[in-house]
């Protein structure tokens, strides 16, 4: 195998990248000035060296504990539970949550051999003592995410914790006309008084 094939097969191991795309990326780098390849390689190495998983919440950042857990201005009474560290970026992007996070590292899925022991649930329970008043379950609305939320709800409610779940329904800014039937049915089921 040539060095070109080597790089392409590394790219192909990444999610969402097939063989053809891997070669397209490789040839793009070959055509670009050498500094560009150097910058990319450097960024990858630096990321791998510097990014740590926070021992408290499981999020990814350059410090451990992470910036959220260390922050003096965030609301320490609310914890938002997510499946993956990448979900945090989406919630942070909304700018409307100022509490702390907790990353489970996946969701319950017997078919993939993932039970409660495989998730960071003990670590979450260990955090509940320090004045936490509400846990928001922000697992995905998939079958597995819902089962995970149900499981957590039972565990947390038995400890007297107030537990909430993200609502679902129509996307903001979307036209009703373009929403699919399933989404509209969900939104109807979850309608509220005005």
């Amino acid at each position, binding site marked *: 195998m040539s060095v070109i094939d080597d790089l392409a097969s590394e790219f192909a191991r990444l999610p969402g990248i097939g063989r053809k795309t891997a070669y397209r990326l490789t040839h793009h780098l070959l055509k670009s000035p050498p500094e560009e390849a150097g910058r990319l390689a450097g960024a990858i190495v630096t990321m791998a060296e510097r990014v740590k998983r926070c021992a408290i919440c499981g999020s990814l950042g350059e410090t451990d504990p992470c910036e959220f857990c260390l922050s003096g201005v965030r609301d320490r009474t609310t914890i938002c539970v997510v499946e993956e560290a990448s979900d945090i970026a989406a919630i942070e992007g909304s700018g409307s949550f100022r509490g702390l996070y907790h990353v489970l590292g996946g969701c*319950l899925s*017997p078919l993939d051999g993932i*039970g*409660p022991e495989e998730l960071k649930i003990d670590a979450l329970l260990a955090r509940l003592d320090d004045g936490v008043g509400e846990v928001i379950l922000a697992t995905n609305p998939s*079958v597995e995410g819902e*089962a995970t939320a*149900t499981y957590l709800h*039972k565990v947390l409610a038995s400890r007297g914790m107030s537990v909430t779940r993200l609502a679902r329904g129509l996307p903001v800014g979307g036209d009703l006309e373009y929403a699919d*039937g399933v989404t509209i*049915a969900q939104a109807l089921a979850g309608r509220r008084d005005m």
Partner: protein
Amino acid sequence: MFLARISLRNFRNFENEVIELPQEGAALIGANGQGKTNLLEAIYYLEIFRSFRGARDDQLVNFGAEYFRVEAHVACVDDGEGGEAVEVAAGYVRDGRRKKVTINGGEAARMAEGIGRIGAIIFTASDVEMVAGGPGARRRFLDIALSLVEPSYLADLQRYRQILTQRNELLRERGDASSLAAWNDGLVAVGSRIMQARARWISDARPRFSRHCEAISGGEEAAMEYAPSVSMINGEQADGSKLTREEWESAFREQLDRLRERERRRGVTVVGPHRDDLRLGLLGRRDQLSLRAFGSAGQQRTAAIALRMVEAETWRESRGRRPIVMLDDVFAELDPQRATRMFEMLSSQEWGQVIVTSPKPDDYALMGGRLSEYRIERGRVNRI
């Protein structure tokens, strides 16, 4: 609304055919193995995006070809029914097993969005399996009929199957009670929606089914009832159609609890809509006899046709227009009296476009001259 044009490319034994159909319908005449059923399969593919014969998509591609594509143009007629003309197309490529569904040229975001746009009901000789076979065939019938009229039914069904697979895996590996409980909520919530929809549909369909059976057979009475795996608590509301969502949920939950030991031993979920049945019976002098066990071949065929007619009727009522009716060599299976009665029923105003297949151009197939005759030979179609 009627199917005005169907184009096939590399679908089964059709290489490249464009067929225009008149508003009244067509009789597709040809010897066995020439492609009559394949053509109906192609039309119905655009209704549910899979083969009604249970074939895999790659088996539908013409031998030696890389892809197939089917397109239909459903046209509007001025019959007071309203509705909008629609173009539905589906393509499948062997390489990468890609399937693409387009509605009026735009790609459908979900398969469910495209389902039921043609508005077709198909009667086939193998429908008798719904009556004579196991409960799986009857559940499939219920599921297709309900998916076509209730928008959220299909999504619920898919979700239920996913939960069931996960839960069964957990039971198989002997997961603990609290993990199992995490899956029960979803199972009960989604399962109850399915049971409630089925109970209502069946309650509504029961008198229609009896009426059609009686009309085709010339006086024999038949009945249908829901036989849910979750037994209903309230004896007096026997058909379950009046039960609320909450009542279904509590019955389901209670039985999951009660059968906990058995499902642990067996390693599968033993109760729920995946074990439902639709009971079909002949009304005897004293009691009801199971059509599956005691019905004659003719009675079973009659009941199968009646089920399809019920499906067509509920479809018509939910959409406010008549579906396209396809009959795959159905008359040949019936005795002359039953064939004549069915033929008379289909000729009435209640039914719209009819597409019939038959090996010979007899009076039944052509519906007394109402239908135009098409000849099918080795994947080529010609209007006579």
